[in-house]
């Protein structure tokens, strides 16, 4: 209870401080001369370019398609955000280490396949393991968390032990994982077919209604995603691993000299990431309902984009959970909004690419300015 009170008072304190800062900023802005005003306004606009563009986008879409702000649409955006959030949290850790992880999407794909294959209805004719029955959900969760942890262990081990760039390591594991998915889908005469016929207990555990708003159900996995995010927040901010992660990302040499176990830190951060991909795979299985080899394709690019938009810098050592949440949310708003505007699906890739490019450029600008 005490912790709770302290938490609230500290949030209050921080909000007040922020308000004070904004007021001070506004006052000094008003007092500045015109040239200075223009300079500071452009600098403010550039520093917050992503937010400004997205706000404008929301306003424009909402005016053109008012249904964009209906309850159904908002719940849809929130659900999509919840589904993608764990991946971004995992990738975020790798980026804080000043690395990256491009194996995320395929890791989600593999864990989703495994989950689906273990949780097919007993009576379903295309069941991959007919003799196995439907396994209990907690057991399946443990199995796929273990799979995710092993994927992360491999990534982290090669990064930490051989000092390979995470891009190269995860590029390799990405390919290996895709091969594993393709092979897995051949098992038991499945012949590479899509996995469906999932057990109702599983689908309702994930997609069942948590509660309804205006007759629209909010799926249960939103709650799971919130819990996972809180857990990752605690790990990042309240544990030795978190502190060490930021230290290694900020200055690896200094971390080593300071007695940080750099090897273990890197391995654990990647293992955590792997387990987060696994939970995402577990959610995706039931959310999509039918799992194929292409499940998870390009998820990592969305996750990396979300992190960068949310201020997790590729320079390393900086980033906040709240930033990642906002990043994922904003990205989903854009995608759903573009759907509302009936933008061509193929156009979406180009827009995604431009967003990542812009976000990175804006981010680097902050660092270049001080150099």
């Amino acid at each position, binding site marked *: 209870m005490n912790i709770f009170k302290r938490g609230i008072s500290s949030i209050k304190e921080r909000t007040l401080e922020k308000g004070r800062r904004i007021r001070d900023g506004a006052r000094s802005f008003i007092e500045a001369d015109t040239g200075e005003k223009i300079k500071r306004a452009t600098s403010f606009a550039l520093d917050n370019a992503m937010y400004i563009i997205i706000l404008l986008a929301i306003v424009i879409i909402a005016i053109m398609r008012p249904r964009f702000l209906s309850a159904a649409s908002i719940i849809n955006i929130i659900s999509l955000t919840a589904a993608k959030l764990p991946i971004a949290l995992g990738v975020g850790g790798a980026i804080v280490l000043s690395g990256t992880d491009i194996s995320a999407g395929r890791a989600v794909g593999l864990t989703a396949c495994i989950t689906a294959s273990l949780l097919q209805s007993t009576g379903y004719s295309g069941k991959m393991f007919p003799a196995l029955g439907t396994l209990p959900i907690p057991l399946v969760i443990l199995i796929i968390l273990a799979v995710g942890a092993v994927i992360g262990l491999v990534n982290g081990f090669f990064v930490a032990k051989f000092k390979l760039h995470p891009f190269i390591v995860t590029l390799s594991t990405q390919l290996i994982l895709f091969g594993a998915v393709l092979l897995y889908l051949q098992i038991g005469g499945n012949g590479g077919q899509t996995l469906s016929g999932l057990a109702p207990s599983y689908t309702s555990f994930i997609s069942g209604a948590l509660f309804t708003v205006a007759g629209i159900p909010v799926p249960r996995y939103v709650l799971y995603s919130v819990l996972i995010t809180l857990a990752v927040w*605690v790990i990042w901010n*309240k*544990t*030795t691993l978190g*502190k*060490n992660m*930021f*230290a290694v990302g*900020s*200055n690896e*040499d*200094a*971390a*080593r*000299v*300071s*007695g*940080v*176990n750099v090897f273990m830190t890197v391995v654990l951060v990647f293992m955590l990431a792997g387990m987060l991909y696994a939970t995402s795979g577990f959610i995706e299985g039931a959310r999509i309902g039918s799992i194929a080899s292409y499940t998870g394709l390009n998820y990592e690019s969305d996750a990396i984009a979300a992190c960068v938009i949310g201020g997790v810098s590729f*320079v*390393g*050592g*900086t980033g906040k959970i709240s930033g990642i949440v906002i990043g994922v949310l904003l990205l989903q708003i854009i995608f759903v909004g573009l759907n509302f505007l009936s933008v061509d699906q193929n156009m979406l890739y180009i827009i995604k690419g431009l967003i990542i490019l812009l976000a990175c450029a804006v981010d680097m600008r902050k660092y270049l300015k001080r150099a």
Partner: protein
Amino acid sequence: MSELLRMENITKVFPGVKALDGVSLTVKAGTVHALMGENGAGKSTLMKCLFGIYRPDAGRIRLDGKDVEFRSTKEALDGGVAMVHQELSQAMRLSVMDNMFLGRIPLVWRHLPFVSEMELYKRTREVLDELGMDIDPRAPISSLSVSKRQMIEIAKAVSYRARIIVLDEPTSSLNEAEAEKLFGIIELLRSRGCGIIYISHKMDEIFRIADEITVMRDGRYITTRPKYDITMDEIIRLMVGRTLEERYPEKSNELGEELFSVENLSSESAGLSEISLSLHRGEILGIAGLDGSGRTETLECIFGLRRHGGILRVEGRVRDIRSPRAAIGAHIAFISEERRQNGIFPVLSVQENTVISSLKKFNTGPLLSSSRMRAATMDGIKKLRIKTPSEKARIKNLSGGNQQKVILSRWLLTEPEVLLLDEPTRGIDVGAKYEIYKLIIGLAEEGRGIILVSSEMGELLGLCDRIAVLSDGTLSGILTREEATQEKIMRLASGEKV
């Protein structure tokens, strides 16, 4: 002899430090001009102003009677000024000839971007032959010894047809025969009418090759004299200048029982052999030596950053220290010379920088207690008088002296018995230095043992109870506070016996 270069009233200010204050330097054609001063006296800064790396805030530079203002090293090179840096910055994987003509590689035809390998080889061969160097232009730089690489840097300066050549501690990585060869080349350049600016700490070299000597101290010009008009003692006195008493706080530490010892410390990678030291409680033990003598490497071995042989004892117990973690476990702390490279976490806050080495202390179950970490940080800020807007400020926004205090605060949280300090006052202004000195003496007073590596003679003489002098990776002698003088240290450092 005609005047070739005249630098007048050069002033350069860095945030918080006046690195150069109205310094003048005149170099005549066909002479070797020695530039002398303690570390931090401003010699390198002056040369960087000449070479276009820094732009002086005031003063002017005349070369061959014409005012010049180089805005980049390229302009300086084209203008006839070349510099051989103390630390070599060569493209290791490229060949000798690629390195020599980097940035001005000859082309087959100047309108086409194709490199003429033949021309490149021919021109490199010419320069090397001219200087009597037997090096294959096609050999990769990484296959050459440090001394050969140094020679190539000099050849590069010659290939630019430079009139002024700056040599910054050129013999620090050369053996006697190689140094002899270098002097031959310097003689050749002098006879051609080049002006050579020679920076070195080695007195015998200076008296052998220099024609004139300029002394600098604390960013100021002191004097210029012909070689025959000055003695070694006089140079040292002019370099050190002030009496030590004004610059260092009064010592109040008392020695206790033996706290730490190292026997026959050796390391192949660092070129250390059989170094034995002992340290008592309350003692400040200095380690002196020239650049490359193994001072930093000795500390790195003790702290487990380098593989090493030998026996380390802390409080009488033999400890096997193979990693910084093990060293911290044995209550050893290490403040590194490269503050930016492996000291601070620039984008993290003062608090995070403070607690990173002792996170275990702040665990409540699996979680860290923010309030206790904050309390410990505030405590350090108060005790060490760290000037920071708040404990949440990013450390990179603090001044060098305050950053150093945060790092000291970090290590004090690990409750160290033995503190290894490597150049703890490098890049810190004079006022902050005095505070750091006071802190060091205070730590010794509390009964801790301190090993202090410094290239500032005054710092060692002013703070240390004993001074161990290293020369070429071996211990050449230990001087007590009473018997230590600058000259004795210099002699031991250059390998002579006292």
